[in-house]
């Protein structure tokens, strides 16, 4: 990032901030982020956020779970120590299916959620750098980068206001 300074437009209505973001992107402003108390549908697409690759991670973890379960069960019951229970076969893949299924789900859930925390840099006890105290309650905030010698702050404020912003503020990030 070549700038730490942002202009915040604060809104009360998700539809207003949606329109504002669309207009900002259209007019060539660089929207750093939009903060909201709930997911506003479609705004990620407007901001040009690429579809998350967490789905790929989920698939990889599922495959890991399947491999792990099949390896464990066949190793235990066939390769390491064969136990004759009622004359049943030692290597019997169909009876491995339930555990394989459960372990693939377990690995997917834990692996994917761990990745989710990692990419968001979320960790227990982390201090939140929230942009406004009410952003988890009822306010919607758009943060627009101020690029030195390029961004016209007056015009930007005017644009934000025309879309229904209730407040406009400046903020500097400490990076």
């Amino acid at each position, binding site marked *: 990032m070549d700038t730490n300074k942002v202009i915040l437009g604060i809104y009360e209505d998700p539809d207003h901030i949606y329109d504002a973001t669309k207009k900002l992107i259209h007019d060539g402003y660089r929207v750093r982020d939009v903060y909201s108390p709930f997911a506003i549908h479609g705004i990620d697409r407007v901001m040009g956020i690429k579809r998350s690759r967490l789905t790929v991670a989920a698939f990889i973890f599922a495959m890991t779970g399947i491999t792990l379960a099949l390896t464990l069960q066949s190793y235990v019951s066939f390769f390491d120590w064969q*136990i004759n229970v009622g004359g049943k076969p030692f290597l019997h893949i169909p009876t491995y299916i339930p555990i394989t299924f*459960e372990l693939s789900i377990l690995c997917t859930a834990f692996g*994917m959620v761990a990745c989710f925390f990692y990419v*968001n840099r979320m960790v227990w006890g982390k201090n939140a*750098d929230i942009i406004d105290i009410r*952003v988890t*309650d009822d306010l919607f905030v758009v943060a627009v980068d101020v690029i030195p010698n390029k961004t016209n702050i007056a015009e930007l404020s005017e644009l934000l206001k025309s879309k229904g912003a209730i407040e406009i503020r400046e903020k500097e990030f400490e990076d």
Partner: protein
Amino acid sequence: MSYESPIRDMLITGGKTYSDITKEITRPIENKPSKAWWIGFGLSSIVLALWLFSTTYTMLVGIGAWGLNKTVGWAFDITNFVFWVGIGHAGTLISAVLLLFRQKWRMSINRSAEAMTIFAVICAASFIVSHMGRPWVAYWPIPLPNAFGSLWVNFNSPLVWDVFAISTYFSVSLVFWYVGLIPDIATVRDRAVTKARKFWYGFFAMGWNGSTRVWHRYEVISLILAAISTPLVLSVHSIVSMDFATSLVPGWHTTIFPPYFVAGAIFSGFGMVLTLLIVAREVLNYKDYITTEHLDAMCRVVMLTGTLVGLAYITEFFVAAYSGVEYEQYAFINRATGPYWWSYWIMMGCNLLAPQVFWSRWARTTPWFIFIMSIIVNIGMWFERFVIIVTSLHRDFLPSSWTMYTPTIIEFGILLGSFGLFFFFFFLFMKFLPAINMAELKSIVKTKHALELEKHYTELLNNNHKMSNNAHETKGDSVHGH
């Protein structure tokens, strides 16, 4: 001819704004608990003490403290286990399956239903551990090399599948619940005034800041978690049913068990959700969030699954008759007319007949009536497991082994006490965590702007209709004129 479907009633009533939702749902967390809460919490603590006493007594004396004998080796304890696992199913069903079907009414109830799942599975697990008789070796069902004291487990056994199924179910439900809680924990954190609240909610909020990038990923993982939890919830009770179905005991050895158990689990789970929510909406005053429409929707599910379960009971009878196997035929006739006939007819009455009252809209929208019905459903489902286990076991292949089973007072203590364990956790949950998913609810509340738009379009639509109706009329007149 044209048919216009009526616009649905709003999912939450009372014209709430975003900040109303925040204020009202965080109220129990931010204020001293009400008298009703203390009474409920106190009662459940007393019953929990009963559970602690009975379980400790069982651990000290051994399984001899129960009424089991050499023929009936599974009775109250496994009945309770299957009962509680079944209760747990509604939570995941509401949050995962209804999410995939985009049923928005789930949003007011999913949080407490998921909490219910977790506490119910804790209760269920406690029965497995105490049934082992030697809980200090409870780690033996985990695959550990022979040198650890047990042998490697037998992967052909459904009991081992169960260990994996229940533990996966518990941990995945816990993750699903926690991920759903994070945005709401952050809301409590940002409103916190006391130091302790700031610290603890801040700790568990993991630095949540409401960024769109995070929300985008959050939506993706919620969807995948729902997608993997759906087959999970079906698999868990199927595996529980295989504990019975893969055996050769007449009355258990049937292929209908997996779907029949899953339907029963959803049935009893929804019964318990209804019991809890009717109490919660009174105690926490959430009537605008959990409306009679929500109750109506849940009652429909109860009626459907109750009827499915009833169909399964009748199918079992038919299959036994059609199979020509005399042992199977005897097992079923003995169920309905043998020494435990009363438990069979309680089951039939509570599970098949009673839910049929929900065909009437009055029954589906009258809270006190639903409350009574939900308890009847749970009594019926407990008896279903009792019937399956005890009546199938008490008549062995050898008539010399025929016997009766009578529970001891300790077994009653554990059964009653498990409700204490369950409600103890549930009351703590209602006090310390937002009982309704605020972030999701806010996404379905109509804003002032949206309401204005809606009004505008409705007017436009009405005007259009008037115009086209007028046009039709004039056209019709001219036809008549000819």
